[in-house]
């Protein structure tokens, strides 16, 4: 089934050149076998992220999203296929590229290492041997950017889930990374914090940074992603495209146990009831405008 989906999706997808100067990430038919024998084959389509792009990786539990991100971070070494970050294999040359990569993992509790927020955010610059005044300057700037200066002296253990995620993000952003890798970044965040995180991701991309993230939060994908990849069970990459392109294939998404965003579903049902209904819009503002225009047109 995944093969047929892949062919179907490919016909709708953007084609990628073999490699281009602005290419930051490439994952091509990577296979990995875990100790318990579970095999993940990230095949079907190449995953490519370019400079300034915000890429979302979608898929059901166990589809290999985290496996893919761990390959990008050099934590897993592929048995087959190509993994390239800034043109090198991160598993073999991680030290060459790590200063250019910021990471927020799914379990932020385990990512926070130091006894105070300030020390934790300062962890990477200190490890890289940056002079202390410069470390302080960078830490202050990133804490201010995330609006968490007031937490600097706090013990991370006592922070709320959302605050811990912001601290982890500050630790990832402190080195001004060119690539930000986020594993389920919206998990446990309230709507306000989610909005702030989306704004930060967009700001990072506007400044030329690349963001690649896995998420289950389908409804927010159109708000932050320029491009999406959809994984099916076992790691098959079955669909790629802009959010509008990807969510226009509810049948393929259903094969990967992914429910399209509520707005996409609502517009699809509206069209089923009335063929003259507007084309799907995936953000609240665009949907409201489309519905208002449709209403005026009808009136």
């Amino acid at each position, binding site marked *: 089934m995944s093969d047929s989906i892949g062919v179907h999706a490919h016909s709708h997808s953007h084609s990628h050149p073999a490699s281009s100067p602005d290419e930051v990430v490439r994952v091509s038919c990577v296979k990995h076998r875990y100790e318990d024998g579970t095999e993940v084959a990230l095949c079907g389509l190449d995953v490519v992220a370019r400079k300034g792009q915000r890429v979302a990786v979608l898929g059901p539990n166990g589809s290999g999203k985290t496996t893919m991100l761990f390959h990008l*971070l050099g*934590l897993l070494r592929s048995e087959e296929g190509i993994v390239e970050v800034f043109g090198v294999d991160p598993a073999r040359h*991680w*030290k060459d590229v*790590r*200063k250019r*990569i910021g*990471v927020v*993992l799914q*379990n932020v*509790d*385990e*990512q926070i*290492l*130091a*006894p*105070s927020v300030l*020390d934790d955010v*300062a*962890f*990477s*610059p*200190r*490890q*890289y*041997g940056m002079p*202390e005044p410069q*470390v302080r300057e960078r830490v202050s700037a990133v804490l201010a950017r995330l609006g968490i200066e007031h937490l600097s002296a706090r013990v991370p*253990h006592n922070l709320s889930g959302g605050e811990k995620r912001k601290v982890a993000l500050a*630790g990832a952003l402190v080195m001004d990374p060119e690539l930000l890798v986020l594993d389920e970044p919206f998990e446990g965040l309230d709507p306000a914090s989610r909005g702030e995180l989306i704004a930060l991701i967009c700001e990072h991309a506007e400044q030329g940074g690349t963001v690649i993230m896995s998420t289950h939060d389908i409804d927010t994908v159109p708000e932050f992603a320029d491009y999406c990849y959809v994984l099916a069970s076992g790691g098959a990459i079955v669909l790629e495209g802009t959010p509008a392109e990807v969510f226009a294939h509810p049948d393929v998404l259903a094969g990967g146990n992914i429910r399209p965003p509520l707005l996409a579903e609502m517009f699809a049902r509206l069209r089923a009831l009335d063929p003259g209904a507007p084309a799907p819009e995936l953000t609240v503002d665009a949907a409201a405008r489309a519905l208002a225009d449709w209403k005026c047109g009808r009136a």
Partner: protein
Amino acid sequence: MLHRAVPGAKLLAFALVLTGVVASANVLVVGGIALTLVAVIVALRLPWRPMLLLALYPGIFGAIYSFAVATDLLSASLIILKAITAALVAVLLMFTTPYPQVFAPIQRVLPAVIGDALLMTYRSLFLLLEKFSHTLTAVRLRAGLIGANPIRSAATITRSLGGVLLYSIDLSQRTHDVMYLRGYDGRLVVTPQPSVSAWIDRGVAIVGAAIGVMAVAWRIWWPGLNPYAWIPPLVAMVLLVVALAWRVFRKEPV
């Protein structure tokens, strides 16, 4: 004030006071040191309840040991009091100093992997305690702890501990991964805490030295000093009263 002193001064004071406690053979002197430490805790508005509770734990083992070896009540009291006072000094150090700053000097003289392991063990301990607490809650909610059947409850707790042990092995791998991702390269970098005031640093070291020297002197010249053994606890009591009065005067909860 203790928070603002450099870790080096605090470690020196800690070592000196600890030497005094270990060297002392007079229960009133050790009691005086313990009361002085309590006065410091009160004056600095530190969370005295958990600190005293933590310091009391070694007292339990001290009590068992003294039951086995002590020949009279006085020597038994001395063993227990020494255990509690030594623990109180350590707790005071840990509550007023970020742990990397405590372990950093140790890390400098040990092989990298051992020094780093000491630093990270401390952090992992918090995560493991939290995990164990969550596991126990889950066990309780699923009726795994039955008051009427302590043997079954004990077996369940042991199995839970086994689960936490497996989690800890996994956690150590993940922590190493995270450190590697965040720039770890075989040696954790701990930036020394700068001195806020040389006077505070000196003051802390001098107080520590005074306590240590007093206790050691008492041990050496005890025949002449013992008639005045009531002085250390009296001075400590005065300090405690002053600390309490200061807090009441400042209208802060004790």
